[in-house]
């Protein structure tokens, strides 16, 4: 375990080198929030409540959703594809390191730099510039755990997509398709309450809602009963386990086709 923490540290150090990159990511997120603010203002058009959400709740959902999007977008699949294609993966296979755990800890390192440089400034902006009204409730206490579980589910999916590099030349198509499916069906682009009731029911039994909708609901509606939050966490934990096992099985299949040229 101590060894894997070194990967976290390494990733943080790599992340810090690209300070300018963070600056543009923050700028991008600010522009995104401004656009989202105006867009949702005209969607509400003076209406008090839409689909059970107030304007403040919807804006909080969308703005926080975009920072979670940045947090979860760690390019694990792209990094893996690169390592698989150029054969660097063999370095990890010949050492007593688990390739999935190595990737998970590196990803955590990258994400922790972006929590500090992107998520934190965004939340500060939400409070002081957009003056969002936050309700008081137990939801905030469960949010960090929920975010971590969402992170793990997302990582497992990225990892599975990265494995496809064993079979194809470029993972652009698979990665993009996954990203679009996730962002539409998880509620990252639009709160799930806006979907028609029948579709909502289907979306709630899919793993995607556990990545965005669940953690976002804990913050937009924090004043629900504790039992509701515990149930949400249980569903997330179950999806984390299922996606983990599935990605392990995929790995044991994919690794069989690996041929690395000597050199």
């Amino acid at each position, binding site marked *: 375990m101590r060894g894997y923490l070194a990967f976290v540290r390494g990733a943080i150090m790599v992340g810090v080198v690209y300070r300018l990159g963070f600056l543009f990511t923050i700028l991008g997120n600010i522009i995104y929030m*401004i*656009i989202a603010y105006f*867009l949702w203002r005209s*969607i509400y058009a003076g209406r008090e409540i839409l689909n059970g959400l107030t304007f403040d709740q919807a804006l909080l959902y969308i703005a926080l959703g975009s920072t979670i999007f940045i947090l979860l977008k760690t390019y694990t699949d792209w990094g893996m594809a690169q390592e698989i294609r150029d054969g660097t993966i063999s370095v990890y296979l010949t050492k007593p390191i688990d390739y999935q755990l190595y990737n998970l800890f590196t990803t955590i390192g990258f994400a922790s730099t972006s929590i500090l440089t992107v998520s934190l400034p965004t939340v500060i902006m939400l409070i002081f510039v957009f003056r969002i009204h936050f309700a008081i409730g137990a939801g905030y206490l469960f949010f960090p755990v929920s975010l971590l579980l969402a992170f793990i589910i997302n990582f497992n999916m990225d990892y599975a997509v990265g494995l496809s590099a064993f079979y*194809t030349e470029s993972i652009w*198509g698979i990665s*993009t398709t996954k990203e679009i499916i996730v962002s*539409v069906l998880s509620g990252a682009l*639009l709160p799930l309450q806006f979907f028609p009731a029948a579709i909502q029911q289907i979306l709630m039994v899919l793993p995607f809602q556990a990545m965005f909708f669940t953690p976002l609901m804990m913050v937009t509606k924090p004043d629900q009963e504790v039992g509701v939050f515990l149930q949400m966490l249980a569903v997330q934990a179950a999806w984390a386990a299922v996606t983990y096992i599935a990605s392990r099985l995929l790995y044991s299949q994919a690794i069989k086709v690996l041929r690395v040229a000597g050199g």
Partner: protein
Amino acid sequence: MLTLGDYIRLYFRIEAQYIKGQMQYRADFLISSIGMFFSSLATLSVFVVLFNTIPSLAGWSLMEMVFIYAFYMIAISPMQILFDAIWWIRYKVQSGEFVKYYFRPMNMMFYYMSERFDIKGLTQLAAGIILLVYSSFRLGLAWSFGKVLILLIAVFSASLVLIAIAVMAGTSAFWLINSYPVLALAWKVREFAPYPMSIFDGVFRFAFTFILPIGFIAFYPAQFFLRPEEVSPLFFLTPFIGIGLFALTYKVWTLGVNSYTGTGS
């Protein structure tokens, strides 16, 4: 000195070779095309779901939004198909591989951009054309030869606006080395081009019209075909903004190319 005709002939020959090379990876092409198709569908599905709840957005109906979105898809296709190489410039600048572009007797931007031809972008273009035809039928828009001509000019100008913004963002690699965050920023903002500019207030409407002119990628030009009676004078500015921005980008590109010193290896 090569003439325009030479360049066109050259372009077709380069791309024919490139496509032949790419056809080795047929599965990859198929998956990428599906990915492209899904990514075009994402914003559209947001519209459809949203209009389930609200009757109109800033006075625009769902079908009108679909038309603007279709225009947007067509207008962003030339960038996707012809200028895709801009995404790789940071690697070439960083590794020093970029020096090779100095050694051919032809325009460097042409040489650099001709190295990639994004076939999957054709899916987007086709989907855009189908949606444009569909939505204009549903809206009962009257088309004439003149209007189609204006449409072509408008699409051409709008696509120049996006090409200019993206190439300029990518060109920052000559100064920043890693231009990805800049390009990603431009790419993210671009996604909002199909929304009505009328949702923005004073300062921000000005900014998205003249400073980061995403309004000219779809909304201002598409407006003319939807509601010709209330078209804003900005529509007529589209060609000038497109050509002007592209000229500016070309200037920045030339500056970048001239300041690049390679990596010494």
